[in-house]
């Protein structure tokens, strides 16, 4: 009553798609695609995570405030990863001698 009740068939659909994406990510991992392997694996994982959040975790049916909180988690995680990698991945780009 306080939250719209999600029809059962939606859960079955999401479950089916999640299993299909799992098979897909395992299958794709056997192909040698260079850098694309990592990009594909992470894209599929992000799709799966979004499906779980939107439907199983009812985010799609939740208030904007909940969206902001969930989004804040993702944004802070992005900060953590981007600022860490901007250090480690760029070491050696410039010919700076040892300190």
């Amino acid at each position, binding site marked *: 009553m*306080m939250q719209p009740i999600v029809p059962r068939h939606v859960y079955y659909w999401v479950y089916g798609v999640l299993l299909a994406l*799992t098979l897909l990510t395992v299958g794709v991992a056997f192909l040698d695609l260079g850098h694309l392997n990592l990009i594909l*694996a*992470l894209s599929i994982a992000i799709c*799966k995570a979004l499906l*779980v959040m939107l439907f*199983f975790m009812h985010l799609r049916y939740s208030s904007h405030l909940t969206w902001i*909180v*969930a989004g804040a988690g993702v944004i802070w*995680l992005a900060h953590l990863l981007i600022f860490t990698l901007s250090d480690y991945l760029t070491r050696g780009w410039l010919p700076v001698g040892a300190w």
Partner: protein
Amino acid sequence: MEGNGALAEQFDDLAQQHEAASLGMWVFLVTEILFFGGLFAGYTVYRATYSEAFREASHHLDLLLGSINTAVLITSSLTMAFAVHNAQEGRRRALIVFLLLTMIIGAVFLGIKVTEYAHKYEQDLVPGIRFAYGGPHPGQVQLFLIFYFVMTSLHALHLTIGIGLLGVLAFLAWRGHFSADYYAPVETSGLYWHFIDIVWIFLFPLLYLIGTH
């Protein structure tokens, strides 16, 4: 509907009370994202630095068991979603059945995980306890396995806590604690359970799938 004892006095109505509960859980989950995020960031740095050794080390994980466990955990998320669904509709028996089912499937995941750990022990691939590796980059392979064990055991710890939570919920449901007006503990425990699923959704490709091609 309201005024039957389900509504705590500080809230205007049941909808507001329900939203406060799930919002609080989301705030907690954000701290959990960053808790696991530190490990993911550490993993990413060393994966970028020692990518060859990490690919090599990933070969030693059991892809079949890892894939089965992914499907098992997704299935437990489905049964958890059905538990919440039945709580929303006030069906007590179905709620208890789906809670117990989710606990059992969660336990199956842990059982498979323990089997994998046992295999690693037999193969001398447990850093710090029993480690002997003949291939190239033994130190870096060891580092990968440390990430593997710390991340998956931390995940398994969360799952164990989740199973305990659901056990408490099943007991409370059996005592008639929940109704279509009041099921916030079921909803918030569901959020926690699905979060554990999401962590595994990222752990699986990052640990198991990087060395297959």
